């Protein structure tokens, strides 16, 4: 099923062991080279924690399920810390082509809620397939030059 970054932001994260809420979706950390969601950032800022996608029990339309609180972990490196601070958030990020021209700002990103694989980047009235994604970071998202033509 298709999910979106905007749509899932703020969604409850529930521990199956205790049936209680352990937090809410703050950001989704993406692996640009693999074009998939790598981890879910629960909460935002200094106290935020991460759950690797593989450790999720499920990413449902009403709640994100984890087996128990043990799968939540603090950020392990600078990149993950940047993610908890929101620096790597795709929504609102500038989109550039590899030719150095701006396409616009990312309005939303869709992904498969089963596999975490990214589907499309929505930029203005463009729908850029995730296959065009070359890289993403704190400054911009870079897509390949097939996107240089008009939408």
């Amino acid at each position, binding site marked *: 099923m298709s999910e979106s970054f905007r749509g899932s932001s703020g969604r409850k994260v529930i521990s199956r062991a205790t049936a209680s809420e352990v937090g809410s979706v703050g950001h989704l950390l993406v692996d640009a080279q693999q074009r998939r969601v790598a981890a879910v950032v629960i909460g935002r800022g200094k106290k935020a924690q991460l759950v690797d996608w593989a450790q999720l029990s499920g990413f449902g339309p009403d709640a994100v399920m984890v087996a128990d609180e043990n799968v939540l972990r603090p950020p392990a490196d600078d990149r993950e810390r940047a993610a908890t601070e929101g620096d790597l958030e795709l929504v609102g990020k500038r989109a550039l082509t590899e030719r*150095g021209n701006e396409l616009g700002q990312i309005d939303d990103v869709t992904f498969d809620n089963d596999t975490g694989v990214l589907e499309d980047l929505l930029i203005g009235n463009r729908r850029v397939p995730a296959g065009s994604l070359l*890289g993403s*970071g704190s400054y911009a998202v870079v897509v390949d030059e097939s996107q240089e033509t008009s939408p």
Partner: protein
Amino acid sequence: MRLLMTASQIRGLPVVTVGGGEDVAEVRDVIYSPEEGRLVGVTLNKRGFLAGRSRDALPAEAIHAIGQNAVMVLDESSLVAPQDAPDDVGRPATERNVIGDDVLTEGGTSLGKVTDLVLLVGSTGEVVGYQIDKDGGGRGYIPLPAQLSVSGVALVVPNVTEEFVQDDLVGLGASVDEFRARMGLT
């Protein structure tokens, strides 16, 4: 029809890595070789409102593409220490600003003074023309051949250039191909 931009529009652009999406520097000076008809590199500033100069430089070979909003590189290793960059880029002759140089045809006609270089958007620094202040007043754009012969006094262009003075970048974009065909070059 080619999309064009000026060299002064490149100054201040961020240098962005394709794989990392990071702005690792921004462009300070644009270094141009009239003989080669292209940029040989750029010098850099660090990013940030109060950040100073960067000692690293970016030679043209390491540029992936120059666009209207960013200069793209593959990764941070594209930026080189000044001692590893070609002299023209690592230690540029900052007093040799090409802006203000006279443009003369081979036959000795003055066309005006250079106010900017015109480059192909998306290339790695191919210079296709000059923006000039015409001797008679007003701004003009002239196409350039792939290589310019150099003189000690001014930038020297082929005689036929005189027929190709354009009023705007769009006109220049449309005329570059025709100009080069007239010059007998591809």
